């Protein structure tokens, strides 16, 4: 027999009545679009230029939903050297009917050709149309957002670390060059000038001071690649202790300490060599991986090289270059260089950008109207207009001062 003492029943009525008086938790999609975080696994985008057809994604996919066709081509050598073969992508399709959105393909791609985008509205009436071919995957690339900055205490990602180091090194070198230029006018421009031209082919995160392949995933730090020196292997004790104290496992601590030691030792050896030998700036190694470049930087830099980009000029150009390196700008206009595989630097720069600012973004109406009139689908038009607006906003902000770091929490349910 139910012992209806009644109190609990009344309390229950109170709870429902209270909830009735509060605003509902519903958000009315499709009138209100969700504000999805950057890491949301909505759809996979492909940047064709970066793909070297290494097939890692296709192999690692647990569902085998990536279909890749390619053929090999001989590429005429530039000056001397042997003919190189290059893999060209014929077909790259992802079957989203099979895809389980695990992200392993995006994770394993060594060339940052695959990215996650929060787009999710691509339902079809026919299952075959869920296989997205290269053109559709490229359209998704316009919607890839910049990643969020990492939490306090996180280890900086390698791309950001090397980008930052390169920036600092460039700034230091530029300052030193300015010093030198002020004291003795002659030798300064000569050094950056030849250094700058190979920088044409690379994505200049900082262009001055050393032609470095700016940080692709596997790149060396942005200091100029010097000639190799012989050094005895050893370990930097201080680094090792520090890392161990910070909680690194022994193996990695040892490895990092050895790297630190080697770097320092080599630098010393080189300095000794340079002091002893001819004192010119070491010839920069031609960047083996070419990269996607912004037309702006690619076109502008050779023109301005004879004008000897001054210390002041290059940081600007360097700044302008990553600015132009929006997801929208990089893919369609970029061309792979003749030097073999194309490595996209943009995500690194984009990541650097993301580190700098993350803004609330609206759309640039003109761009949007123009693209819609040109017949673009609404979604991509919106994305491109959004990118254009962001670019303008950043440029304005940079003109007015640097934007601060703003975390961007997603729209959780506010009670």
């Amino acid at each position, binding site marked *: *027999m139910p012992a*209806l003492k009644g109190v609990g029943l009344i309390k*229950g*009525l109170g709870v*429902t009545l209270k*909830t*009735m008086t509060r605003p509902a938790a519903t958000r009315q999609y499709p009138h209100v679009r969700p504000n999805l975080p950057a890491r949301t696994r909505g759809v996979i985008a492909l940047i064709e230029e970066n793909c070297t057809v290494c097939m890692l994604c296709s192999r690692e996919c647990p569902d085998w939903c990536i279909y890749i066709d390619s053929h090999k081509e001989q590429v005429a050598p530039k000056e001397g050297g042997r003919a190189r073969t290059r893999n060209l992508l014929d077909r790259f399709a992802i079957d989203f009917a099979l895809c389980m959105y695990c992200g392993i393909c995006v994770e394993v791609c060594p060339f940052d050709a695959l990215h996650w985008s929060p787009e999710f509205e691509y339902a079809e009436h026919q299952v075959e149309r869920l296989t997205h071919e290269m053109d559709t995957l490229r359209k998704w690339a316009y919607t890839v957002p910049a990643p969020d900055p990492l939490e306090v205490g996180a280890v900086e990602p390698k791309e950001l670390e090397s980008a930052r180091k390169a920036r600092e090194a460039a700034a230091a070198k530029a300052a030193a060059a300015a010093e030198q230029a002020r004291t003795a006018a002659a030798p300064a421009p000569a050094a950056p000038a030849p250094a700058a031209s190979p920088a044409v082919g690379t994505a200049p995160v900082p262009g001055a001071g050393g032609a470095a392949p700016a940080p692709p995933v596997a790149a060396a730090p942005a200091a100029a690649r010097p000639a190799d020196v012989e050094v005895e292997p050893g370990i930097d004790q201080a680094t090792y202790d520090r890392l161990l104290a910070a909680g690194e496992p022994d193996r990695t601590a040892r490895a990092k300490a050895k790297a630190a030691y080697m770097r320092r030792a080599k630098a010393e050896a080189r300095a000794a060599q340079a002091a002893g030998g001819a004192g010119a700036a070491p010839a920069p190694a031609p960047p083996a991986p070419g990269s996607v470049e912004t037309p702006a930087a690619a076109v502008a830099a050779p023109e301005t090289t004879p004008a000897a980009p001054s210390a002041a000029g290059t940081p600007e150009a360097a700044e302008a270059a990553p600015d132009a390196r929006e997801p929208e700008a990089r893919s369609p206009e970029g061309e792979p260089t003749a030097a073999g595989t194309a490595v996209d630097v943009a995500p690194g720069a984009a990541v650097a950008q993301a580190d700098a600012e993350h803004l609330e973004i609206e759309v640039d109406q003109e761009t949007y109207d123009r693209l819609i009139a040109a017949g673009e689908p609404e979604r991509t038009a919106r994305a491109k207009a959004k990118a254009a607006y962001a670019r303008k906003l950043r440029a304005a902000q940079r003109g007015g001062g640097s934007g601060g770091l703003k975390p961007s929490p997603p729209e959780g349910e506010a009670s």
Partner: protein
Amino acid sequence: MIETVRDLLDNYWVLTPVKVLAVLAIFLTFPLVVGYMEHKVMAHMQARLGPMEAGRFHGVLQLVADGIKFVQKESIIPRAADKWVFALAPAVALIPAILVFGFIPYGPNLVPIPSDVGLFVTLALSSVSVIGVLMAAWSSANKYSLMGGIRAAAQLIAYELPLVLAAAAVAMQAGSADLAVIVERQGWWGYIVGPLVVGFFVYGTAALAELTRPPFDMPVADSELVFGHLTEYTGLRFAFFLLTEYAGIVSQSAIAATLFLGGWKGPFLDGPWWLAAKVLLLSFGVIWARSTYPRLREDQLQSFAWIRLVPLSLALLLVVGFLKVYEVGV
């Protein structure tokens, strides 16, 4: 002008169609209003919005859309079903529900069918629906329906008693079984003030059980029996059953308002609007109970009726009778 209208209305053959139309109008609008209220109230109690699209403004036309949807559905009668019984069951359930609306006093001298025993006629009519339920359950040729129907029949029969006894207490208090008279003998606050408040709760609970509304909806417990005796019904027939349920809510609320809350009487400006307000208030209570409570198990339901409610209502009858005889004011 008014003279001619009044003369016209004195004519039986003019008055009756007007009354029929009026009752039909009430029958067709109020349940829809209560149905829409249920959608919205329940939704907001569950932190969501309810219908928002149909009819542009917060889904006001949702039930109209549902009605159209039901009308255009295929009418399926299971092959093993007893065709005639299956087809007639919704009618047997629905028609008495419409008739009840004829006996309720909507205002001073505004009873479509004046009757000395109006109270018992309405109670009797509302129990005819039990037959409709049993017909539906048996003719569906479905184990789940059968079990649901048997449970429903047992429940409905069990809760008739407290319902009638509580109503009888009111009749005793008012000294008449005529609904119009019962209202007139109340103050605008009704019979709530006094021992009959117990009667109000007894009547309310029994009415909930008569309507198989939560927490007494074991017969249509969808988590166990799909939809009980209504499992095999589709399309318009199903819509009629649903209409019966909502019409039942409205009519039972109206009867409860008439018996206990003072009917069309209000603190000022008596009229049908007060009855409407009270009906909506009681319907809100019914919906509130649905949102909040889990359902009682069948045996708990039965024991609640027989062991709790019936003795309670008998005691109430005793008390009211005692007070009445000794002329103690209520």
